[in-house]
């Protein structure tokens, strides 16, 4: 290597030029692809919500969302109402339908509400929005609620379809970076399907939630009254994260479901 490339001034100039070139290259890539990425993320949210409700193209053992061509139409026909609850300290301050919410929030669709931001608001003692998507499943009304929590490495989230008694009628889980083959299996059909039919409330109507439990002697998950779902091997922390987000986030909806019963 020549002496020229070893001098301090060359090193500094090289560093500056490189930072500018790489920085603008990345900024250009990110901003030119942003509309496409946003659109993909929007469709994915719709697919996830519909999946939890049971609107999907699953075959034996697989997870297949409704296709991206059909999702917009299915979302507008299958979801009869998008409800947004404004809650604080476990009390519902306000209940809005889609139009009311969009009028008050820059025309933002309720299903695009960022759950992470809302959780931060609640943590800071402010009121938060809880979206809820109403639809039909086999002639019964179901409500899909989003949940979000932490797994082992990164965020995990999901959508849970509940009937009016808060019995689970379908779930969808996803994760940002759980270990493939271990925690990432919360996204597998055999794990998600176990939640179907599980109850969140006790006989007396108290919120109990569901625990992802090791060794519950029910690997086929036939007992739907045990408030437990069989855990995944080697994914204890991710499983605990799933239990925690179900208990914490779905409990917030309890006042709404209690009002429905009245």
């Amino acid at each position, binding site marked *: 290597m020549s002496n020229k*490339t070893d001098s301090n001034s060359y090193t500094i100039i090289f560093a500056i030029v490189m930072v500018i070139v790489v920085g603008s290259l*990345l900024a250009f*890539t*990110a901003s030119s692809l942003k509309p496409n990425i946003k659109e993909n993320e929007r469709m994915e949210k719709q697919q996830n919500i519909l999946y939890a409700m049971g609107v999907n193209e699953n075959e034996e053992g697989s997870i297949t969302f409704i296709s991206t061509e059909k999702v917009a139409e299915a979302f507008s026909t299958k979801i009869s109402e998008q409800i947004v609850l404004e809650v604080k300290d476990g009390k519902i301050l306000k209940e809005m339908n889609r139009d009311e919410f969009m009028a008050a929030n820059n025309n933002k669709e309720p299903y695009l509400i960022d759950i992470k931001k809302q959780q931060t608001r609640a943590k800071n003692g402010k009121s938060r929005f809880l979206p809820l998507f109403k639809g039909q499943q086999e002639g019964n009304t179901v409500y899909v609620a989003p949940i979000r929590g932490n797994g082992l490495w990164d965020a995990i989230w999901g959508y849970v379809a509940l009937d009016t008694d808060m019995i689970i009628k379908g779930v969808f889980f996803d994760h940002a970076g759980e*270990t493939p083959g271990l925690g990432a299996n919360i996204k597998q059909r055999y794990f998600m399907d176990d939640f179907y039919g599980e109850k969140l409330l006790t006989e007396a109507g108290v919120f109990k939630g569901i625990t992802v439990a090791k060794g519950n002697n029910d690997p086929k998950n036939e007992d739907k009254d045990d408030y437990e779902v069989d855990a995944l091997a080697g994914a204890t922390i991710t499983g605990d994260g799933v239990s925690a987000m179900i208990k914490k986030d779905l409990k917030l909806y309890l006042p709404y479901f209690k009002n429905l019963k009245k």
Partner: protein
Amino acid sequence: MGLLSKKDAKLITDPLADNNPITIQVLGICSALAITAELKASLVMGIAVLFVLGVGNVVISLMRNIIPSKIRIIVQLIVVASLVIIVDQVLKAFAYELSKTLSVFIGLIITNCIIMGRFEAFALGNGPWKSFLDGIGNALGYAVILLIVGFFRELLGSGTLFGIPVLGDPIEKTGLYATGYENNGFMLMPPMALIIVGLIIWVQRSRNKALIED
């Protein structure tokens, strides 16, 4: 191999066996432990590293005469990080499903020591074509070990290959499970990958005594 001279061909074949990045150079062990619990993840990671190492080696090789030696490690890191980010963004925009599968690996690729190791040891001192071959060769050598480890871990740990059950149904007790066979959940834990890599090293060195160091 009419296309390649003997010397060039060696750049590809050497890392597959006698100079394997994982078993001989002992690079890239961390990701080999993290993602080999299933075969599909091993394959995806192998392909991702193949791409990044092939392109990255060429980029570094082209820049080798202008990179200041004092900050060369940082320059290498920036090249690999930007490559990975650009690929990730493009996939997110045009192949969203695939990018979901890959998202876990993005961080692992950037920190993969094979990549930095080959930049430093080869691309900085050789021309672009040779560096490209070296990158492809080392990535293939890495992928081979990943696939072997993934094969055993998924087969013995979950009884599946690429997610398809091959030994029967462990809950319904069909196939091999009818004889009382059980999946070894321990195989899904990262330490077992280390043991399998150790076994591969043992087999390889007992067949080729020249590889044994003092």
